[in-house]
């Protein structure tokens, strides 16, 4: 295994597993320069922490403190246990502990349940539908995936697009969340369809129950979705420019 700078940084930050740690330590024994690099990363962390520490000692302006303290006096803020959401939460925790392909398959079949339930009610435009090679986005979600840009989409869009990225197969993929069905997922452009590689139902509850800005800028995607993106992504998520360019080429990958 090659010992690159990023690996040394992760080692210095304690962000590496036991196997990687052993490898780095073996390499450091052989090459003292690597050890100096690790020491430099640690010194840099200390230096920054020290430079920013004095700010914590500054007095807090009253107006900020009072916002919190007076809220206490006025009306006790709602503290609601997530009882009714517990089922969905437990489910998510289970999915989280699975490996990615397994979680994907199970979650997809869950989403299929959502889909079937929806189609019993309406015409199915809203959810996902079965395509020849698996689940694909229904008309509403597909339209959002094809047309919306994360940077310009309306705050209250019924389907919001989060991250856009290229996957390991060179396809352009986008995360989406549909509020009404509390459905989050990853869809990749495949032919003229958006193939749904991961769908999670019930995960949108915790952070998007209202249209508030806690959930803006693609932030607060469900952790299991981010984990799946992590497993699939090649390079970095698209920035606004790359996203707009990808739309122009109908979401065909730039590298293909």
């Amino acid at each position, binding site marked *: 295994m090659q010992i690159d700078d990023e690996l040394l940084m992760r080692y210095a930050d304690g962000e590496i597993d036991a196997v990687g740690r052993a490898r780095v330590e073996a390499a450091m024994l052989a090459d003292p320069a690597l050890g100096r690099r690790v020491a430099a990363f640690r010194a840099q962390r200390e230096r920054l922490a020290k430079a920013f520490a004095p700010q914590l000692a500054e007095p807090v302006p009253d107006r900020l403190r009072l916002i*919190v*303290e007076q809220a206490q006096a006025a009306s006790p803020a709602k503290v609601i246990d997530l009882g009714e959401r517990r089922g969905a939460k437990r489910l998510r925790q289970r999915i989280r502990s699975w490996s990615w392909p397994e979680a994907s398959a199970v979650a997809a079949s869950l989403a299929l349940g959502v889909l079937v339930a929806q189609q019993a009610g309406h015409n199915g435009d809203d959810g996902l539908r079965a395509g020849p090679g698996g689940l694909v986005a229904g008309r509403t979600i597909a339209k959002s995936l094809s047309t919306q840009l994360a940077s310009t989409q309306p705050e209250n869009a019924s389907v919001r697009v989060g991250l856009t990225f290229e996957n390991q197969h060179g396809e352009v993929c986008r995360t989406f969340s549909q509020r009404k069905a509390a459905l989050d997922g990853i869809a990749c452009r495949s032919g003229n369809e958006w193939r749904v590689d991961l769908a999670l139902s019930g995960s949108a509850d915790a952070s998007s129950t209202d249209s508030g800005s806690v959930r803006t800028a693609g932030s607060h995607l469900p952790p299991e979705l981010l984990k799946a993106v992590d497993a699939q992504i090649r390079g970095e998520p698209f920035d606004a420019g790359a996203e707009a360019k990808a739309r122009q080429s109908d979401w065909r990958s730039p590298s293909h």
Partner: protein
Amino acid sequence: MDDTKRIQRELVELIPRLRRYARSLTRNVADADDVVQVALEKALGRLDQWQRGTRLDSWMFTIVRNSWLDEVRSRARRDEHAPFGGDSELVAAYAGPAEETLAIEEAMARLPEEQRSCVMLVLVEGLSYKEAAEVLGIPIGTVTSRLARGREALQAVLGPDTG
């Protein structure tokens, strides 16, 4: 009720760290305090959305950053001539900042926000890569590469750190 009180006490204790992170975003003390104020108001209005057992500081960093992004967007919409970070009020507001601190702040100010936030959250605030990824809404691998680039740029400006 006791639970609410406890959370509110924790929020008050967090304010200095929230201000510090907000300053790294706005690069201006007054703007940073406004952002923190908005974030606290939002948080108090939706304490039910904070999931017990998760880090309150991470949740608040998320809200601070999103409040700032909202403000940047709405300023851009209003086309105001007062973009964030346009002046050097920040450094002046500190009580006798050391030369070292000034140099570091200037170097930090040159980083793109996404790298700066990674550096602040991981190196200054002590979040793990995973926690920072959740605050920023990006994959862990992206945190790693942004952090690496940010650290490299800082080193280039500030000189090598010898242990």
